[in-house]
Structures are given as structure tokens and as C-alpha cells.
């Protein structure tokens, strides 16, 4: 059975939207990171879907780069969260308000 391309697009768009909403409404820095990961994985899903549709390899190749970069980003992000937790003993982004947003 062939999955139509529109299903991939719809699913990845839905995942992406959930990620965006999560970033906007959640206040815990770690959960915000998880939501950003979800957005990136939504992109990966659509890339794989398109690569399948075009029978081409470059979309799948892109996915590897995205995953690698996401891992690097999270490594830096977690280090920053640890540094903040040492100084302020919180990871709630509402309490990071020394400067107004």
C-alpha cells in the first residue's frame, strides 16, 4: 500500500504546529527544548516523505544533518540550563526576567 504524500505533509505539519504551541505555552526550559526537538523531527518526517515521493536520496541525507545539528544544539542548551540552575536554582523561563522580554 502506498501512503499518499499529502498524509506525510499533514502529519508533519500537525507535529510542527504542536511543537510551536508547546514552545509558546510551556514554561519549563527543558520541555521547551523537547518541543523544539519535536518541530525538528516534524521537518525530518516531511523530508523523508518527500524523498520517498521523488525517489531521491537528498531529502534523507538532509535528515542526518538535521539530527546531528539538533544534538549539538541540545548539548549547548543543556549546558546553559545547568549554568542557570547553579545561579538561580530554577529552570522556569518566567523567572528569567532580569531583562524584560
Amino acid at each position, binding site marked *: 500500500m502506498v501512503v499518499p504524500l499529502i498524509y506525510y505533509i499533514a502529519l508533519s505539519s500537525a507535529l510542527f504546529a504542536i511543537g510551536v504551541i508547546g*514552545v509558546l505555552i510551556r514554561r519549563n526550559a527543558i520541555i521547551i*527544548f523537547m518541543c523544539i526537538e519535536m518541530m525538528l523531527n516534524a521537518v525530518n518526517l516531511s523530508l523523508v516523505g518527500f524523498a520517498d515521493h521523488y525517489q531521491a536520496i537528498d531529502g534523507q541525507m*538532509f535528515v542526518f544533518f538535521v539530527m546531528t545539528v539538533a544534538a549539538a544544539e541540545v548539548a549547548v542548551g543543556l549546558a546553559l540550563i545547568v*549554568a542557570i540552575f547553579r545561579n538561580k536554582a530554577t529552570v522556569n523561563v518566567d523567572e528569567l526576567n532580569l531583562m524584560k522580554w
Partner: protein
Amino acid sequence: MTISIPSITLSNIGPLLTLTVAGLLLLLMDALTPKGKKGYFPYLSLIALVIAAVQTTMLWNRSGTDFARMIYVDNFAFFFYLIFLLATGLTILISIKYLEDYHRNLEEYYTLLIFATIGMMLMAAGGHLILIFLGLEILSIAIYILAGLFREDVKSNEAALKYLILGAFSSAFLLFGMAMLYGATGSLFLDDLAQAIKAGVGTNPLLLFGMGLLIVGFGFKVSSVPFHMWTPDVYEGAPTSVTAFMSVGTKAAAFAALVRIFFLVFPEIKMEWNMLLWGLAVATMTLGNVVAIAQTNIKRMLAYSSIAHAGYLLVALVAANQLGAISFLYYLVAYTLMNLGAFAIVILVARKKDDYINIYDYCGLGFQYPALAAAMSVFMFALAGIPPTAGFVGKFYVFSAAVEAGYIWLAIIGVMNSLISVFYYLRITVLMYMRPAEADLGPVTMTPAISSAVLVTAAGVLAIGVFPGPLYELALNSVKIFVGL
């Protein structure tokens, strides 16, 4: 099965290779050199930057692509290479003293600056969406770390985390846009994208959706309204030298990729995007200038001013003609010089203990330190766009490009915005020369490095303002690749 390896010419990415080697070498030497003997690291990185600049000038006038069409080898990329190298070099010069004052003269700092420069170069030269994305992330991840360099400072932490969250958020939008472009055309190469659009997928909803997401993603990176919210906070909290680097480097790199994509891939569907960017440009200029008036922290003021300058650059993008592209490059050079110069003065005036970064700390600077105040006035005049500085010529080119393309109202709004900006830039000058000093600033220590940075930027701002011709010719040479304009 035979595998054919594409032929490559390593010298085409010579500057990138030099910087990569230099960055890795610095990291290695950092591990092997005993403490206290690392004072020459910044100068070593400067030498690497100079070598890369020489290599770039030797590559000038090459054209085409290399590495299986992954990299564009053209004057447009080389022009941006030189802007990035200049920005990084000046940042290193203004950082040394500043970092020593805060006991944070870490060697990784210079390595990260160099890696960030490599990322910027990849963004300017990338001919494939993966490469542009990778360049962006190499740049961004280095800057996330730099923004959080003062680990014990809560403000620096906060700035780094805000930048990281919003940076990753915007990268996700950019990526989703790239995926949609791939979905619409079946290729990730900019050349193929341009051809597919010429062949008529222009009205494909996936393509338009992808383009919109690209605008959102790049809008975050260049801090255009309404995606500017992070800019003032991050600029205020990050170490001042890093702020200086971010305000010119990141912006120039994101604009390089934006201009290349929009002028190379999307000129055929100009009708779909220019009104959108028109709105963004007007909103960005107006909000940046109006809110800057209310700021009393000079770093925040310069942050809003950098938002306003992103607006002027967007005007050049909306014009989308040859003069627009030329004015764009000219304006970026001018902006790099004047903004880095202004930040150099901010670093000199603001020293440890009391951070003198309130604008009222500049009262009476003209009597205590005439040379410093004179340099600051030059940068303020340039940022406000008053002749005979580079800022004036840049704005003149940008607005003439808009008029030439028929956007009279855009030019009028832009000129009115420059008038508003005169208020807050000249306020600094007035404070320096017409108010008695409120607090004793104490001695300002000028080191040769930072003095030469101030001298180079001030002389540069005046020189290309009085003689814009040579730079104009260079820019004209660089934008010839955009045949669609």
C-alpha cells in the same frame, strides 16, 4: 558499480580551510600551552584572518560553482567573506582588553569566533540548502556559547538561553521552509530551485508556504519586526564584545543567504514576496527607531538601532534591482564599520565594577576624553546618516534604489525614519559635549589593540563616505551574478 568522484579545486575554499585549520590549531595549542602563556592567541587568530583575507582577494573574479555545485565561487561570496573577516578581526581587537577586565580571557573565545566566521562564510557561499543550514548552525551554536561566556553572570546566562531557545525555534521554521521547497521542486540545489520556478511551479502552494517560512526563519535571524523580540534582551545581556560581533556578523550572514536565495531563486515570483517584505521593512524601521528613543541603556539603544538598520537593508531587498543589490552590499560594509566602532567606544567607557552603560554616563565625555568623544560622534553621525559619513551614502543608495524600483512611499517612510533616528543618535553627542560630567569616569585605559580598532573604523567610515566610488565598483562587480535583476 563505479563511483565517480567529482573534481574539486581546494583553493576555491582556501579561506575556509585556513580558518578551519587555525581554529583547530588554537584549540590544540590551548590544551598544550601552560597557563599564563596564552597572551598571543588573539594575535594568532588575527594572522589567520589576514591570511584568509589575502586568499580571498586572490580568488577575486573567479566564477562558477565547485564541490558538485555545493559551493558558489563568485564575487558576491568573496565580498561577504571580506565583510565577515573585517568584522571578526575588529571584534578580536576590541575583545582582548574587555575579556581581561572580566578575567574571562579564555582561548576558546577566539576559536569560537573563528568557527562562527566559517559558518558565516558557508552561508554566503552555500549553493545547496543543506550547506546554508549547516553554515547557519555552525554560526549560531558558536554564538550561543559566546553569549553565555560569563558563566557566573545571571544576565549573560539569561541572554544565552533566550538566544538559544529563539534561535533554535527560528531554525526549525527555516528548516520546515526548506523542506517545503524541496517538496515543491524535488531538489535542494539553489540552481535547480531557480530553474524549477522558471519552468512554472511558481504558484504551487507548497512553494509559497516554504517561502513564507523562510522569511519567518531569516526574519528572526536578522531581527526584523515582528520577530525581533529577542534582540534587545540578548544584546543587553551578552558580553559587549559578543554583542558587537552578533550585531554585525550574524545579521550580515543571514542577509547574505537571504539575498542570495531571493535574488537567485525567487526573482520570477517577485510579485508574491515584495509586498510582504515591504510591510516588514516599514514595520522594522519604524519600530526600531521609535522604541530606541525610549532607551537609556546604550546597549539596548544600539540593539533597537540595529533593528532599524535591518529595516533599511530590507528596503534594498524590496527594491530588487541592481542598485538595490549594490546599495545592500555598500550599506553592510558601512554598517559593520560604524556599529563595531560604536561598540568599541561602549567597551572603552564601560568598565568593570560599575558598568557605565547608561547613556547619561556619557555626559561630559567630550571634556574629559576629546578623542574618544570625537570618534563616538563620528559613529553616531554615521549611524544617523549625516554626510560626509558612510551612513549617509549608504542610505542615499538604498533609498534611490527604492525610488528607481518605483517604491516612492517606501523611500519617504525610510527618510522620515532616518529623521527620527537623528534624535537618539545626536542625543549621545549632545550629552557628551553640552552636559557637565555626572560621575567621574576614572581613567580610560586605551590599549593599542582597541585604539587601532577605533581608528580603523572611524577612518573607514569617513573614507568610504567621502570616496564611495571604489567600494561601489567592487559591489557592482559582486552583484553581476544576479542576472534576473
